[in-house]
């Protein structure tokens, strides 16, 4: 290769040789600029919120010459206090991902073929507004469904409500936190909320049931978890897999999957029969204790042992440990709680256990939220949807939240045309092929639509099925509504502000929603012109200085996290009775079990194991697999198989196999990780891999998709939430 040498190159090389010749190394540490610095005189640090996951930690984005050179944790942020996980540190990997959606795209070929032409924003938005008007006229506004996720969805939701549809489905409910939040609301009168109000750092005993903190990383929760461990808190982990948390545990209970309810009831039995529960607390704050005591009477550790595969002694020992550490016991309510279809009832059991330990509103347990009163522009009432909701929320799923809706209920309605046909889907920051189980049904529903619109940053799996693709700016390029967090010991407001202007021809979510509103004559719901006006109005009642908020990124307020912080007349619970409802009248009125009952779940047939899935520390959902620094650390997932299972299957560690589920659905090839660290009746893999998304050059078809193997669900009758740990797999040769 011919080389030409520049003056600069020569001088560098000359300097190097000169130093080498004298063997007198220059002293290090003269550099005072950030990495990636290109000689800009000024480096700005813009305070904002992360968006690599939903925890939204405070970040500082260093900007030099219009380029974000580094994203770090914001030390002034009350939540993460300068700390940031692997994903947060890789913020520029998203911003400068070469595979980003760069311009609006309009489909030219058949749906799913992946043929698009770039169009201008005017063309794209005029097209979409025209289609939405047409659908409203022909089929009614309710026939449009929105699938949002994340904070900027707060601009698309009012847009679609104003348009006239109530059909909004977030996977955060029916594929995640829904059953848990409903269960805690039934019991304590308020949902758990997010971030979870867990007093981990003060806890004396942390109980994790299926939660794999450490692999499931939310920065501040990880900090609190580690702080608790270092302070000597005991750790009790219930998990069929030897997780990172299990490796740090004082007790690891490798439970038979699907039997958690039996363990929870047996623990209650010990607490009640041995009078280890917090009697004063139970008397003062709860109702229905006698019914509960009667209910758990026969549900002894000896009863639960053969069900759970945990010895009665071990159950008794751990229950006593809880009794000894009360009330500073944190029974982690979990987050992804859609497992077996009786998930509200399992959540109820966890809530009741928490109440028996006197741990709700107490130091070392779960603390109480302190709300912050925010403002906003007055807007007209949303039109009433003449035909009601199509997803079953508040109807066939009586306890499903109407705000978050039931995603799979919308898929059902699209497929069946009942209660009325759904003709269009708009997805915002959500890949429905990854977030909603039963991929084949989701795809079938998409193919039936008159209109499929994808608003996203990256060409995720579903993008090729879109009629119209709208490229959104990343979090580093846009304003989003602030996080108003009540579930912190010191509640806070934290803002997301753009660090740089949107790259390519991408646009912020607020702008896209507002421009659509303009075209649909719905600007009455967007009575502001700039994000700054929106923010100013929102924080107005708090008395916060806007300039200070924007400069520091967040402002915290004093909180009242414990019951003891509140006068006795405020120590009531927002439930119908004002008490913690151990026995639930609300459930009884619905014809459901007022106290949680053990239900046996189907165990794997011979030759099969149960498919479990979870998180990996360096990835969020399916959204980060194309982020180069994160991809480099974990380019694909592996399936964990026990040594015994692998032997029976004739599979070696590191071998690439295919899995087939009991419906005959086959996975893409996946590496086998053979380990002693999992029960032999289940397999585990990290979620979010194996997308068939040719536009994602790093992530495309790397690893395998757990979601593709989840062809069966067990739907919770109360919430519509899809229990997804009900699929069984066996190996087939790759």
């Amino acid at each position: 290769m011919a080389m030409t040498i520049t003056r600069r190159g020569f001088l560098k090389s000359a300097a190097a040789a000169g130093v080498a010749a004298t063997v007198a190394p220059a002293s290090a540490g003269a550099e005072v600029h950030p990495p990636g610095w290109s000689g800009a005189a000024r480096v700005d640090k813009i305070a904002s919120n992360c968006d690599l996951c939903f925890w939204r930690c405070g970040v500082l984005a260093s900007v030099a010459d219009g380029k974000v050179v580094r994203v770090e944790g914001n030390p002034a942020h009350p939540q993460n206090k300068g700390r940031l996980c692997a994903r947060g540190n890789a913020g520029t990997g998203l911003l400068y991902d070469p595979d980003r959606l760069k311009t609006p795209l309009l489909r030219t070929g058949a749906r799913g073929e992946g043929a698009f032409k770039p169009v201008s924003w005017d063309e794209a938005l005029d097209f979409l507004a025209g289609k939405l008007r047409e659908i409203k006229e022909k089929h009614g506004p309710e026939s449009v469904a929105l699938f949002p996720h994340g904070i900027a969805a707060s601009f698309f939701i009012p847009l679609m409500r104003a348009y006239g549809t109530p059909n909004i489905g977030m996977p955060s409910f029916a594929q995640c936190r829904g059953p848990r939040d409903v269960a805690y609301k039934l019991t304590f009168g308020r949902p758990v909320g997010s971030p979870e109000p867990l007093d981990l750092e003060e806890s004396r005993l942390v109980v994790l049931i299926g939660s794999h903190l450490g692999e499931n990383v939310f920065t501040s929760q990880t900090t609190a978890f580690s702080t608790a461990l270092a302070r000597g808190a005991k750790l009790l982990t219930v998990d069929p897999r030897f997780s990172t948390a299990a490796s740090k545990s004082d007790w690891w209970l490798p439970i038979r999957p699907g039997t958690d309810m039996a363990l929870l009831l047996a623990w209650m039995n010990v607490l009640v029969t041995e009078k280890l529960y917090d009697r004063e607390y139970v008397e003062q704050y709860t109702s229905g204790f006698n019914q509960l005591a009667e209910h758990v009477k026969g549900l002894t550790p000896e009863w639960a042992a053969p069900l759970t595969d945990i010895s009665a002694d071990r159950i008794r020992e751990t229950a006593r440990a809880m009794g000894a550490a009360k009330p500073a016991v944190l029974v982690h309510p979990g987050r992804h709680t859609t497992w077996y279809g009786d998930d509200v009832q399992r959540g109820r059991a966890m809530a009741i256990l928490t109440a028996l330990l006197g741990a709700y509103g107490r130091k070392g347990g779960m603390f109480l939220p302190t709300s912050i009163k925010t403002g906003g522009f007055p807007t007209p009432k949303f039109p009433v949807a003449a035909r009601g909701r199509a997803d079953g929320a508040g109807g066939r799923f009586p306890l499903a939240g109407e705000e978050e809706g039931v995603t799979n209920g919308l898929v059902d309605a699209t497929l069946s045309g009942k209660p009325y046909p759904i003709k269009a889907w708009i997805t915002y920051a959500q890949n429905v092929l990854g977030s909603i189980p039963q991929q084949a049904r989701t795809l079938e529903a998409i193919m039936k639509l008159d209109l499929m619109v994808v608003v996203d940053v990256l060409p995720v799996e579903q993008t090729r099925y879109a009629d119209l693709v709208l490229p959104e700016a990343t979090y580093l390029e846009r304003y989003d509504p602030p996080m108003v967090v009540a579930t912190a010991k010191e509640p806070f407001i934290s803002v997301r502000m753009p660090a740089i202007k949107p790259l390519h021809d991408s646009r912020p979510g607020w702008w896209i929603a507002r421009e659509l509103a303009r075209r649909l004559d719905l600007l009455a719901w967007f009575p502001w012109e700039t994000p700054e006006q929106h923010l100013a109005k929102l924080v107005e009642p708090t008395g916060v200085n806007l300039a200070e908020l924007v400069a520091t990124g967040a402002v915290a307020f004093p909180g009242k996290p414990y019951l003891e912080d509140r006068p006795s007349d405020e120590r009531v619970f927002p439930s119908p009775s004002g008490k913690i409802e151990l026995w639930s009248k609300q459930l009884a009125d619905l014809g459901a079990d007022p106290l949680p009952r053990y239900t046996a779940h189907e165990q794997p047939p011979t030759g099969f194991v149960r498919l479990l899935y979870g998180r990996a520390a360096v990835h969020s959902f399916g959204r980060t697999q194309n982020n180069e620094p994160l991809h480099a650390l974990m380019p694909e997932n592996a399936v964990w198989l026990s040594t015994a299972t692998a032997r029976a299957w004739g599979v070696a560690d590191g071998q690439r196999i295919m899995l087939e589920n009991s419906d005959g659905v086959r996975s893409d090839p996946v590496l086998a990780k053979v380990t002693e660290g999992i029960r032999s009746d289940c397999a585990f893999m990290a979620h979010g891999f194996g997308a068939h998304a040719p536009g994602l050059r790093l992530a495309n078809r790397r690893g395998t998709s757990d979601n593709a193997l989840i062809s069966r669900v067990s739907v919770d009758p109360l919430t519509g939430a899809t229990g997804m740990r009900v699929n069984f797999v066996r190996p087939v040769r790759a």
Partner: protein
Amino acid sequence: MARYAMVTDLRKCVGCQACTVACCQEWGVPAGQARTNVRTTPLSGTFPDLKSTPMVEQCNQCDRPSCVEACPSGATYKDAGGVVQVDGGVCIGCGFCLDACPYANRFINTATRKVDKCDFCSPRVVRGEPPACVATCTAHAKYFGDLEDRGSEVHRLVFWEGARRQETSSVAIGPNVYYLGKPELVALAFSSDPPHSPKLLTAGQALNGLVRPLVVGMVAATFLGQAVAFFAQIHKGEGDSHE
């Protein structure tokens, strides 16, 4: 005189790799390479009696660094704070130090073609900031400071809490990276990836004696060659330069 040290508390570390990514981003280390690496030890025991721990590894900034011995160009040296530095301007990328490091904590940076490794974030420390890994650690598991400073956290952890460093009977060159944790888990972390045998060190040292004059000669030759090329180029002009 300062004696900088790092302590990782394995009781707290969850192996999340925030340190790895923060470090790579801070120093522009190419994807796929890293100055700080996190691993989980292989499981010890059989189901359900198992042990394992996350483990974080980076340059140990050894008191008697074999890499410095092995470096033929003088690029690798120990600075006043006890931190082992690599002068990228001097490094010729020969890789002898990689073989000499018992801990395999050095690599050739594929972008710069120079040896790269942790330097305790010296440029950050100079401006009064903690190393990037310490600043970002989600578990608050990493501590950095001066062992000579009796009031420092690292002094307390090393001299009072019994933080341990990874040495064996055959490899004892005074690492300055320490680990806290349950003794059996720290032992597992150490034994699951032990420092490699000192044979290489001897070989490296022997080689060093021979090679150093040779390499200095090569560097000088390169310098001369470039000078010739440069002046030749000035002569014909730089119109076709491509940098």
